[in-house]
C-alpha cells in the first residue's frame, strides 16, 4: 500500500485539498439541543416556470410527515455524512513518466489536473452528492420537492468545488431540517 502514500502526499501538496475519508466516525459531532424556533428559513413560495421544473433533479428539498425537527436534523446530518468528502477527484499521477522524468512535468501536470478536475471532477462530485442525499433520505422515507435554483442556493450547498465552513454547513442543515419537519408542502412530490 506504499504507493497510495506517495500519491496522497503529492496530491496533497499539489492540490491542497483533503479527500475527507478520515475515520469510521461518520456524522457530524453531536449538536446541542436546538429549538427549531431559533432557525430562520427562507420562503419557499414561487411561481413555477417550465425551466424550473426541468432542473428539479438538481434543486430539491426533503419533507417527511410526522417528523420532529431533532429527527430531521439527525437524519440530514447522517446523510450529509454519506454525501460529503466525495473522493472522485482528478489528481496528478506520480507514476506518470511526465512527472518522473521532467523538471517541469509536475508543475504542468498539477495545473492540468486542477483544470481537469474543475471540468470533470466538480460536476461529478455535485451529481454524486445529490445521489447520496436522495438514496439516504429516500430510504428514510422522506419525499422530495422541487425548488428554483435561487431559493435552493439560499439554504443548500453542493460541496463540489469547495466545502462550506462547518458552521455554515450545520446552519444550512438546520434550515433543511426545519423545512423537512415542517408543514407538508402543497406541491406534488418528485419521483
Amino acid at each position: 500500500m506504499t504507493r497510495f502514500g506517495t500519491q496522497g502526499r503529492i496530491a496533497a501538496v499539489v492540490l491542497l485539498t483533503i479527500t475527507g475519508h478520515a475515520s469510521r466516525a461518520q456524522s457530524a459531532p453531536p449538536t446541542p439541543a436546538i429549538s427549531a424556533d431559533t432557525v430562520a428559513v427562507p420562503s419557499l413560495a414561487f411561481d413555477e416556470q417550465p425551466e424550473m421544473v426541468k432542473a428539479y433533479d438538481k434543486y430539491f428539498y426533503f419533507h417527511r410527515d410526522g417528523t420532529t425537527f431533532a429527527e430531521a436534523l439527525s437524519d440530514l446530518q447522517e446523510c450529509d455524512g454519506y454525501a460529503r468528502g466525495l473522493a472522485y477527484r482528478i489528481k496528478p499521477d506520480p507514476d506518470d513518466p511526465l512527472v518522473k522524468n521532467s523538471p517541469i512535468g509536475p508543475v504542468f501536470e498539477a495545473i492540468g489536473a486542477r483544470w481537469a478536475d474543475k471540468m470533470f471532477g466538480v460536476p461529478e462530485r455535485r451529481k454524486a452528492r445529490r445521489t447520496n442525499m436522495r438514496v439516504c433520505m429516500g430510504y428514510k422515507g422522506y419525499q422530495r420537492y422541487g425548488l428554483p435554483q435561487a431559493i435552493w442556493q439560499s439554504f443548500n450547498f453542493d460541496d463540489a468545488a469547495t466545502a462550506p465552513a462547518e458552521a455554515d454547513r450545520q446552519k444550512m442543515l438546520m434550515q433543511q431540517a426545519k423545512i423537512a419537519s415542517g408543514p407538508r408542502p402543497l406541491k406534488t412530490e418528485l419521483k
Partner: protein
Amino acid sequence: MRLLQAALALLLLPLICKSAVAVDYAEHVTGNGPVTIDPTKAYIAFRILQKSEFRFERLPSNEEIAQYDQDRRAAFDDYKKKKPKGNDFEFDPLEARFSVNTQIGKIFDKQDGQYVYLIAVKPGTYVLYGHMWQEGPGDMDTCFCMGTVKFEAAAGKVTDLGRIRMPDDWDVPAPPANPAGILPFVLIPPATPLRPAGRLQGLPVEPAVLHAMDKMPNSFGVVIDRLFPIPGVLAYERDKVVDPKSTARSR
C-alpha cells in the same frame, strides 16, 4: 473558450490519475488444472453474469483497529512536524487496510453463462463491501454502505457466496430502483444443498452463512446504496438494517 478548455482538459485526462485510495488486489485462483486448497487460507467463490470487480472487507479485530489508530496518530505527528500551513493531512481509511478487491480478468471458471471468481483470503468475517474498482474511487463505484451482508470465511474451505446480480443483468428481472432511480445490486445466495460443478467439484465448498450487516460509513467517498433485501437474511425498516433471523438490529 470554455469548449477549448474542456477539449484540452479531455486531452490531459489520460495523463492524470483520479484515484484517491486504492486497496490491494485479492489473490485469485485461476488457471485450468486441478485446484490445491491451502489449509491456512480461506476461499470465497462468487458468480457474476458480467465480468467486474467487487470489494470485500475483513472485519478487523480490536487489536488491528488499535494498531491502525496508532499508525494514523504517528503519521499525523510526522505531518505536524513539517509545520503545514493548511490542513491537508491524508491517511487511508481503516477499511482500505483490511479490504481486498477482486480483479476483473481473473476468472476461475465459467458455468451456466456466469463467470465464477475464486479468491484466497485470510480467514475471518468478511463484508461484501461494494461494487468498487481497485483503482477507484471513480464515478463507477458503489458502496453498500446502507446495508449489506457479512459471512465467515473459514480456513481450508471454499465459502460460496452465490451470485451477485449486477443492475443491468438481463437474464433475471430487475428489482425496483432505489430512491435515486438507480437499480440496486442483488445477492442471490446459492441453492442448497450445494452441487459444486465444473472446477469447484471435489473442493470443500460450503454455502456462505449470511448475516445482515449494519450501515457503514462512506469511507471511500463513493456513491452509496444497499443490497436489495434477501429473504430470511437481510431486511430493512426504512433505513434501519434488520436481521430477520434475530428481528434485531445487526452488528
